[in-house]
């Protein structure tokens, strides 16, 4: 018995390229479409739940949309968003500027790491919100208190990511760098820093997530503007739960947008590997 195997490239297969293009288009649409479907059905479900339960407290999607419109009219919306973003920008950038170099140094000098690590490991698990009473006493009702808390929230994850990143740089890279006669500062700038960049980028994104959560909580106590303040003020000054939910929604959407931006930065940092 003889069997014959044939592999032939037919015209159909040559046209396969079109198929790939088509499926990538389909992928893009479904990337956008599927989340939109989920959002739409969640809003519908929300509306139906409010409607059929007859709740007087929880607002419907329409109430919330109206509340957002109201905020925009009073130009409070943009001021609160601006205030919140400015605070998170200050605290977070301070944490990046101090945390990245410190983390790299702690990873690079094992003795420094051993000396400082216990302190970091003790401070790290303390929720930044636990510092709130002290922050209010130290800084009063001012922008400094929330900025301080955001700084604390993002500083430790950044330090830990950078330290760990440096410690896990493949020894081969360092060996190669030394072999080519690099001085210690050159080794740092030409090998260590580029090698840890992707890991630091991940740490930065994780840290931002924590910072954003802490921002809202800190604004409920220490200041009189911002998205956290909006929520607490809406409840205190007249049980406006439509405004409460509006604030929650704005915080969520802004958090999503900022996370997407950082995700993009992260994939830029790691795209070369």
């Amino acid at each position, binding site marked *: 018995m003889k069997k014959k195997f044939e592999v032939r490239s037919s015209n159909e297969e040559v046209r396969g390229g079109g198929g790939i293009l088509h499926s990538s288009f389909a992928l893009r649409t479904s990337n956008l479409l599927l989340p939109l479907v989920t959002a739409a059905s969640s809003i519908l479900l929300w509306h139906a739940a409010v409607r059929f339960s007859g709740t007087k407290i929880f607002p419907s999607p329409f109430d919330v949309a109206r509340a957002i419109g109201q905020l925009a009219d009073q130009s409070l919306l943009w001021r609160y968003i601006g205030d919140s973003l400015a605070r998170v920008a200050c605290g977070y950038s301070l944490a990046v500027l101090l945390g990245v170099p410190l983390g790299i140094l702690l990873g690079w000098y094992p003795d420094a790491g051993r000396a400082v690590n216990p302190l970091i490991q003790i401070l790290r698990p303390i929720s930044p919100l636990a510092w709130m009473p002290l922050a209010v006493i130290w800084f009063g009702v001012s922008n400094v208190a929330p900025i301080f808390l955001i700084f604390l929230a993002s500083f430790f994850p950044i330090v830990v990511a950078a330290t760990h990143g440096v410690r896990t740089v493949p020894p081969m890279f360092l060996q190669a760098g*030394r*072999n*080519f006669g690099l001085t210690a500062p050159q080794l740092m700038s030409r090998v260590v820093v580029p090698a840890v960049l992707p890991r630091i980028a991940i740490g930065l994104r994780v840290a931002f997530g924590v910072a954003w959560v802490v921002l809202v909580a800190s604004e409920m106590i220490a200041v009189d503007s911002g998205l956290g303040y909006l929520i607490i003020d809406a409840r205190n000054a007249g049980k406006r739960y439509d405004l409460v939910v509006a604030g929650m929604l704005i915080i969520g959407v802004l958090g999503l947008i900022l996370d997407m931006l950082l995700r993009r930065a992260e994939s830029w940092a790691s795209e070369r590997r």
Partner: protein
Amino acid sequence: MRFGSIDVLQHIDLDVREGEFVCILGPSGCGKSTLLNIVAGFIQPTGGEVTIDGERVISPDPRRIFVFQERGVFPWLTAEGNIGFGLFRLPPEERRKRIAHYVNLVGLNGFERAFPRELSGGMKQRVEVARALAVNPDVLYLDEPFGALDSITRLQMRAELLRIWQAERKSILFVTHDIEESVQLADRVVVLTARPAHIRRIVDIDIPHPRDLSAPRYIQLRDSIFAEIGLAHKI
């Protein structure tokens, strides 16, 4: 050489001539990589010394470049960025010329701007060899450089390495556990024992390049090493 309390290497006494291609052959884990790391100055021996042209080796040196498996290329640099990595002391024009020369020598034309993740294993290995050659070293240390490549690419890379070696006349110290590889490449094969490694025998491979892998002399030398290690060349 001791590692913790384990003797890794004992009584290694080896002279390498300028421009010579020497393979260090031994079973896995016998300490041949350790030996190469000592010779390159990355590890300090607990006893004995390494001298090159009468000068004692105490640290790595750009005149002698260590080539790893292809994982040693820097993933954040392009092919030409990698190849030019050690040329930071040269003026830009000279650096550009040097990079172009070695891109050409290892056959990476058209891939200068590619990042390592876009290259195959064999191409990454070429990048690493070119990066080493670009600083014009006297000696190359290669630690099982083709171990991670598929067998076809490995054969091609051996031929490439010989061609480059004949063009550039570097001294090469090449660590491998592959008997065939050592007999195909080297002027001399240093056969090590299992740990603690010492030199079992040094075999002169007196066959001119290009070597005919079915010539009786090749087979005779190869089989003598198989016999030396205690393996019958049968399966």
